[in-house]
């Protein structure tokens, strides 16, 4: 009896082993075919793999698309999305790759329901719809928008996107704020205005009237199309050169005031600790900045000629000069800057470099038209007695190792 049970157990064990063996063979075969198939037929549309000159291409489509070989992506967190600076060419950011920073998500706004109220220290308060706004004489302007909290560091494996991807550039179209205010009888006591969004945070910032007025635009167009929801559809404030947070998206109210309102965003946030225990507020203009976007982590270069590429910008006007060093700051060479150079705009710079294959460090620094020279991290730390925070714009660069791989240079070591 006991023996029979043992035999039965033995037989069932044999059956189980057989099943396992067969199953594993099946799996192995499946994976073999899979991997083999991938080698023979890559997972891309066949028109691209075969000779494209021997087949009909795709039909036209109402909306275009990127090549399936190109996959630039924003790097996202719950409240922000960073522009892939290392994947872009020239200076315009595609609208769907423009950086984002919001305080209560992206509202979905029906433009028919949306209104802009302009009131406060003026004789004639008004309500404007998007259609009203579009009837005013319009302007276009290419400029960057940068978040003032746009510097990250701390490890070697960081891309330009991770270091300072909260800056993007578009052509904005809309109405000059001065065009609208002209009619409204602005009182001489009006020195500031509060701009407020229609999002869940009712994001609000106070802006000095005289400084913003020459260039402030209430924009409804971005790179030729309507502003995207992420960028403030149907209308936003654009103040070239000012910190991103003041350029209120989903704009619904402008109130002229005598003094700043002192909202949370201009007191507890967007202020920075500086020397002697002070806290600086209303640091509204973005300081000059540059970054090499090629070669940069995670790229690897070959020995020989390279074009070092990057962008430089200043909230105070035009980029005057960009200097590039390929020997860790021992020598600085003037980079070619792409004209026409625009005020308060990302400006492309280029420098041809013959890499000899030895490990080195490449750096860039910008000088703007006011004579401001982009500082080193150590200079900023010393001047402010602070190791970061808003408006931190130090020189950054890349260590090229013997294999040609680029890694973010330690900012503390750049002099």
């Amino acid at each position: 009896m006991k023996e029979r049970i043992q035999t039965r157990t033995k037989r069932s064990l044999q059956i189980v082993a057989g099943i396992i063996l067969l199953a594993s063979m099946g799996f192995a075969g499946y994976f073999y075919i899979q991997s083999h198939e991938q080698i023979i037929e890559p997972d891309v549309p066949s028109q691209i793999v075969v000779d494209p000159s021997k087949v009909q291409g795709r039909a036209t489509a109402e909306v275009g698309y990127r090549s399936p070989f190109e996959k630039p992506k924003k790097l996202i967190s719950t409240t922000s999305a960073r522009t892939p600076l290392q994947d872009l060419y020239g200076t315009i950011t595609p609208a769907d790759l423009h950086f984002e920073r919001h305080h209560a998500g992206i509202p979905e706004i029906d433009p028919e329901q949306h209104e802009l109220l302009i009131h406060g220290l003026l004789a004639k308060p008004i309500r404007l719809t998007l259609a009203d706004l579009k009837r005013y004489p319009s302007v276009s302007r290419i400029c960057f928008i940068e978040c003032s909290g746009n510097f990250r560091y701390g490890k070697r494996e960081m891309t330009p996107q991770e270091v300072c991807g909260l800056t993007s550039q578009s052509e904005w179209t809309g109405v000059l704020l001065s065009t609208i205010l002209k009619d409204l009888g602005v009182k001489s006591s009006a020195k500031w205005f509060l701009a407020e969004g229609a999002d869940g945070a009712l994001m609000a910032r106070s802006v000095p009237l005289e400084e913003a007025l020459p260039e402030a635009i209430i924009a409804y167009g971005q790179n030729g199309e309507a502003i995207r929801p992420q960028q403030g559809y149907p209308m936003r404030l654009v103040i070239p050169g000012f910190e991103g947070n003041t350029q209120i998206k989903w704009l619904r109210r402008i109130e002229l005031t005598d003094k700043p309102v002192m909202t949370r965003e201009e007191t507890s946030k967007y202020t920075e600790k500086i020397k002697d225990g002070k806290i600086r507020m209303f640091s509204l203009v973005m300081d000059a900045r540059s970054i090499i976007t090629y070669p940069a982590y995670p790229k690897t270069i070959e020995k020989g000629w390279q074009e070092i590429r990057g962008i430089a910008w200043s909230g105070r006007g035009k980029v005057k000069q960009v200097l590039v060093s390929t020997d860790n700051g021992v020598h600085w060479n003037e980079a070619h800057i792409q004209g026409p150079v625009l005020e308060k705009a990302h400006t492309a710079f280029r420098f041809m470099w013959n890499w000899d294959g030895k490990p080195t460090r490449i750096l860039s620094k910008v000088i703007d038209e006011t004579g401001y020279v982009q500082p080193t991290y150590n200079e900023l730390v010393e001047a402010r007695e602070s190791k970061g925070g808003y408006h931190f714009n130090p020189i950054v660069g890349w260590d090229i190792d013997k294999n040609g791989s680029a890694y973010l240079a330690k900012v503390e070591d750049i002099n």
Partner: protein
Amino acid sequence: MQGNILTSLYAFGLMFLSSFFLARCSFNKEETVEIDSLHAYHTSWDDGLEDYRKTWPGRFDMGKPADAKFIAKWDIDVRPDGKGLPKEGAGTVKSGAVLYQAKCAACHGVNGYEGPYDKLVTDSTGKNTIGNYWPYASTIFDYVRRAMPFNAPGSLTDQEVYDITAYLLYSNEIIKADDVINSETLPQIEMPALKRYVIDDRKGGQEIR
């Protein structure tokens, strides 16, 4: 003769009264700014704009006038001098403590410093809080009414916002347990951090600050 004197007295009287009236008018009517004078044409984006402007009508008359009722509905900002604070309502620490636990503690911690989100109450870490970093007490009212609680922004009544403001000021040891926060008392509160604040005065150039 007497008639002449009376007439001139009458004339002087009229002149005096009318000049007084005119003076009053000009005192009441504040001067307006010529916006064009503030618009400096200084970037290449302004090329030709000055000439283009000459072809514009004197007025655009776009949109529609905003009446006081509409403005009142949207005009929610509260300023350091108390402008914008509701006259109705007075906040107490006791009511604020109850509301805080129900509406705020999940994000900011039961004591206001445990997180997971922004620290509101000063603790030993020295991280920025209302007590050690915020320069104006009015900002608490403005922000809480504007944007909080995170899961239902703008859902608090003015009374609730007063209560929560009182509680947050008390938790940061700025007011006492039985102090009341209303449109009179809130603007009088001096925040400890105010004296540390300076306004940016950098204008470019070679200096690094």
